[in-house]
């Protein structure tokens, strides 16, 4: 890797660490400041839990010492004990929910990627016809489709009215259909829009004319030449796509009673289970920050043109 490339990786690494520290500091501040927090004098907390927590976080130390020991503990993956369920640690709860959340989001991601490529390529192939106009309007409609409307609608018709599909928990493959459908629609629409714009832009380049002159069919040009060149904006969108999927997953998990991280997070918010909130915030935050940074670096490796720009 060249010198600029190395500097870029260093810059990304710094940015990643800084984001993580900001996130951790923010959550620590919240833990300290909130009324009814674990270190509040009037907290009606089980004394045993409180003692364990204060020992855990080093409450007797100075403020700086507290931040230090907090960051040190977090860096070791030690997130403390859940305040609402004193017999379990936060790490245990996260480990239990993470599988369901990741599987659900992974399936949705695969559906979105394959669906977006097919629809976007078809829309560009039939440029200027009613198909493209239809896709454009559908994209806008799907982008505005809140899962609060779409999820209950699916549940009502498929679950209760026609009684076709199960609507809660994730115990068999059929259980995944409705949650994945609810989860994917909005990200799918935004990905189609992005891919379509990128394909359209590349379709007007000179090399397309050359390929046409050589007698390659429209499908061939699209798939062999244009698609390859349109992949960079697509790759740079994968990070935000994962963020929006995981964000949407909160609501979908609640709607479909999926025992995952999103459900845990929302019940923690409602129970004021601060240690669990902080733990999940840090977990989600670091997961997404790391994924985004890795994608940024990979993107630079994949597209030499980006290297020259810097």
């Amino acid at each position, binding site marked *: 890797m060249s010198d600029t490339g190395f500097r870029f990786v260093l810059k990304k690494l710094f940015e*990643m660490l800084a984001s993580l520290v900001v996130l951790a500091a923010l959550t620590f501040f919240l833990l300290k400041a909130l009324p009814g927090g674990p270190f509040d004098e009037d907290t009606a907390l089980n004394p045993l839990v409180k003692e364990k927590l204060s020992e855990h976080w080093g409450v007797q130390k100075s403020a700086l010492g507290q931040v230090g020991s907090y960051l040190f503990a977090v860096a070791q993956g030690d997130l403390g004990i859940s305040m609402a369920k004193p017999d379990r640690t936060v790490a245990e709860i996260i480990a239990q929910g993470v599988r369901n959340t990741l599987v659900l989001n992974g399936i949705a991601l695969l559906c979105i990627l394959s669906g977006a490529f097919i629809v976007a390529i078809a829309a560009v192939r039939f440029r200027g016809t009613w198909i493209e106009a239809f896709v454009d309007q559908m994209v806008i409609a799907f982008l505005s489709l809140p899962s*609060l409307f779409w999820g209950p*609608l699916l549940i009502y018709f498929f679950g209760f009215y026609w009684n076709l599909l199960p609507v809660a928990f994730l115990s068999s493959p059929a259980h995944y259909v409705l949650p994945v459908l609810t989860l994917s629609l909005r990200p799918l629409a935004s990905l189609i829009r992005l891919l379509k714009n990128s394909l359209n832009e590349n379709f007007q380049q000179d090399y397309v004319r050359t390929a046409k002159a050589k007698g390659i069919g429209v499908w061939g040009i699209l798939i062999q030449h244009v698609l390859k060149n349109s992949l960079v904006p697509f790759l740079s969108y994968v990070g935000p796509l994962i*963020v929006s999927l995981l964000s949407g997953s909160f*609501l979908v998990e609640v709607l479909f009673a999926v025992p995952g991280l999103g459900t845990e997070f929302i019940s923690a918010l409602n129970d004021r289970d601060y240690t669990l909130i902080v733990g999940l915030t840090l977990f989600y935050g670091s997961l997404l920050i790391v994924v985004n940074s890795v994608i940024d670096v990979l993107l630079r490796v994949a597209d030499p043109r980006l290297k020259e720009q810097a």
Partner: protein
Amino acid sequence: MRKFLFALALVFLGILLFATVFGPWLMATSGLEQNVESILLPAGNEHLFGTDSLGRDLFARVLLGGRISLVVGLVGSLMAFIVGLCYGGIAGWSEGVVDRMLMRFCDILMAIPSFILVSVLCLSLQLLLPFEDPLTRSLISLCVSIAATHWMSLARVTRGMVLEIKRKPFVEAAIALGGSRSHIFVKHVLPNMLGTLLILVAMQIPTNILYESFMSFIGLGIHPPYTSWGILVREGWKTLSSFPHLILFPSLVLFLTVWSFHIVLDYLRVKFKI
């Protein structure tokens, strides 16, 4: 087709705005008083959207909730706009080290997933703000937490445009004529980027409305007896299997509103090439 949809969406938004502002004053029922004799009625002539489990008129409640949802959408994006404009303006105007530091901080904030930040901020603001009135408290914490997590992209665009406009001859001319910094910024730079910025700000309105409904749905935003579209969906969700109209109407209005916003803004974006 596009023009037709644009007109239709504009008309819908106009009617919605009029109905939410004046509707609750003009209607016979306020949507707050309970009535044992008209519990869970289906949609009909007397109650346009039917009634809920406490006998309250759902149509009146949708209008009442629309007030709060729209206020959060508008005020939230306005606050994000002001912060983004000042931050991006300062960064673009000063360049150099200040600019680099400000933008780096912006990048760091943007890397944190906004969904988590909004919910955690909203929860803590609700607990920390010193207002007695629960409605004021939840409204302010919703707007502030949404604005606090959505000004970054506006700041970046503002900075880019300030950098570009600064190099234009008419700004040089204004500097040569002895115009002060604030004069040049307000009279020359700002008018040239206001159009683009306003459309970008308006694009946040539907997002904010969705955030509000999400927050209220999970129990962090507005709390009953006050109502918003999120609260109505939350109430309807509990009786989905037996009384689907309770969730259908509020969420349908939510969908149509967000959709109309998107159609209008998409049309404007293409028209003004932004």
